[in-house]
């Protein structure tokens, strides 16, 4: 990865998703020192384009010789990075761009081309929060996880965000603030839910043989894996175990690493229950121990694990789908240029994204040149 860019993070104003996406692509190419005419691999998805790579390539005026617009929700962009790495390795393209854009906040809601689920829609679950609330209810029932432990995830995210000038929410947040605010879908309050912001992000990848030509220190794809087990929450086999339990170990195996080698972690925090599930499924703790793991500020600055160092989807940025912003933050951490708190000497990152309703899971392991 030789370039990252963002645009319109927070409140963008009267910009369309495509306009924001194109600005992020421009920023990422500038960061990489590459021209738009050099882009021959395109990976994109949005909530509002049914044929995203066609629309994006047309808008940018490029003719990619390899493209992939696979849509598996918020994990799409992690999955795109894996495909981009394969395509670069195979010589199917030489400069790949992964891009996303949304004006969800300024447009006043989450427009989506997603189709209704006929066996769920009659019961009017509030998508997607009710699906995650059901999973939280099950985790609390089986393992005794508490609302206070869920709230710890939001409080830790805010503690990171308070140091990040790019973060959308930077005010103080305590466990009691999370518990006392408006309930949305029990047991999740509005502070257990990710932000609704605008924003676009893009990442530029080239083959590692070209990476040293980049103006900034490159970040290397070391391993990746994607797996999905269901689409609808009602079809999820076990609401307390996600496919991260297989994508995580597979990505680490590809990287030749274990969790002990990882310095910085990104866990898709669409809702406070998700980092707890992923800590367990990725193996940072045992199944059912996630609530205890996150207690006492364990994920906050100075805690036992540096998770969501930008403030995550809960406090930094969440424009419909967050995955690519997590990758941008990991690249900046590994370059040593995090906009907020920098994890000293960070050389490896594990970033894990979730899509749909705990449906798709995609894990990437990234590292500096020194980790090759």
């Amino acid at each position, binding site marked *: 990865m030789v370039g990252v860019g963002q645009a319109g993070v927070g409140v963008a104003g009267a910009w369309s998703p495509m306009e924001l996406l194109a600005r992020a692509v421009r920023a990422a190419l500038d960061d990489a020192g590459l021209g738009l005419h050099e882009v021959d691999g395109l990976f994109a998805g949005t909530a509002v384009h049914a044929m995203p790579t066609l629309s994006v390539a047309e808008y940018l005026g490029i003719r990619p010789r390899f493209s992939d617009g696979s849509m598996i929700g918020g994990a799409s962009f992690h999955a795109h990075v894996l495909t981009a790495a394969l395509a670069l390795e195979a010589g199917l393209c030489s400069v790949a761009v992964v891009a996303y854009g949304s004006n969800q906040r300024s447009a006043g809601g989450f427009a989506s081309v997603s189709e209704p689920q*006929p*066996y*769920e829609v*009659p*019961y*009017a*679950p*509030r998508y997607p929060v*009710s699906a995650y*609330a*059901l*999973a939280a*209810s*099950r985790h609390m*029932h089986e393992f005794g996880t508490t609302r206070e432990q869920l709230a710890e995830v939001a409080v830790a995210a805010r503690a990171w965000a308070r140091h990040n000038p790019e973060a959308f929410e930077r005010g103080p947040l305590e466990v009691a603030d999370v518990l006392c605010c*408006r*309930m*949305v*879908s*029990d*047991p999740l309050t509005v502070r257990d839910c990710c932000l609704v912001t605008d924003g676009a992000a893009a990442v530029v990848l080239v083959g590692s043989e070209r990476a040293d030509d980049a103006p900034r220190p490159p970040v290397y794809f070391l391993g990746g894996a994607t797996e999905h087990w269901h689409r*609808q*929450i*009602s*079809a999820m086999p076990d*609401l307390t175990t996600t496919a991260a339990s297989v994508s995580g170990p597979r990505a680490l195996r590809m990287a030749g690493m274990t969790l002990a080698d990882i310095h910085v972690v990104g866990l898709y925090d669409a809702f406070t229950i998700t980092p707890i599930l992923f800590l367990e499924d990725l193996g940072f703790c045992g199944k059912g121990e996630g609530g205890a793991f996150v207690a006492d500020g364990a994920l906050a600055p100075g805690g036992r694990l540096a998770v969501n160092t930008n403030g995550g989807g809960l406090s930094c940025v969440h424009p419909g789908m967050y995955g690519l912003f997590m990758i941008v933050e990991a690249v900046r951490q590994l370059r040593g240029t995090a906009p907020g708190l920098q994890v000293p000497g960070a050389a490896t990152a594990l970033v894990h994204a979730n899509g749909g309703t705990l449906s798709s899971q995609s894990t990437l392991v990234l590292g500096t040149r020194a980790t090759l």
Partner: protein
Amino acid sequence: MPHEANVGAPTASDVGPDAAFQRFLLQGRFMLQRSRTNGAFVFFPRVAVPGTGEADLEWVEASGRGTVYATTTVRRRPDQGGPYNVALVDLDEGVRCMSRVEGVASERVRIGMRVLARIDRAGDAAVLVFVPDGTSAGGDAAP
């Protein structure tokens, strides 16, 4: 209306499994698909057994009994109708469905609660819902 014996068989009917399930509900019947060879139940309705592809599904009457697997209360504003329940119910046949538990305040719906199926008619549609099963032991029991 085709013969019921053919409904769900992929080549023998002009009514697919989704439409067949809904037609049964409109007739006041809660039917589930079951594999003829291994007896396993399937939900939501399919043209073949998920995972194996066996196209030997037949429709059988569901017991209507189940256990709440997960539950949430969607906090709709009072002026829009107030809060309501959304639950995942594990049917005794071994399959799970999304539904809602009625006849009890949503906050009192508990995981492990035994429930009975009802068919709720709303205009032209029929929807499967559940009520607490007062006839059997259950309540807060862990699954």
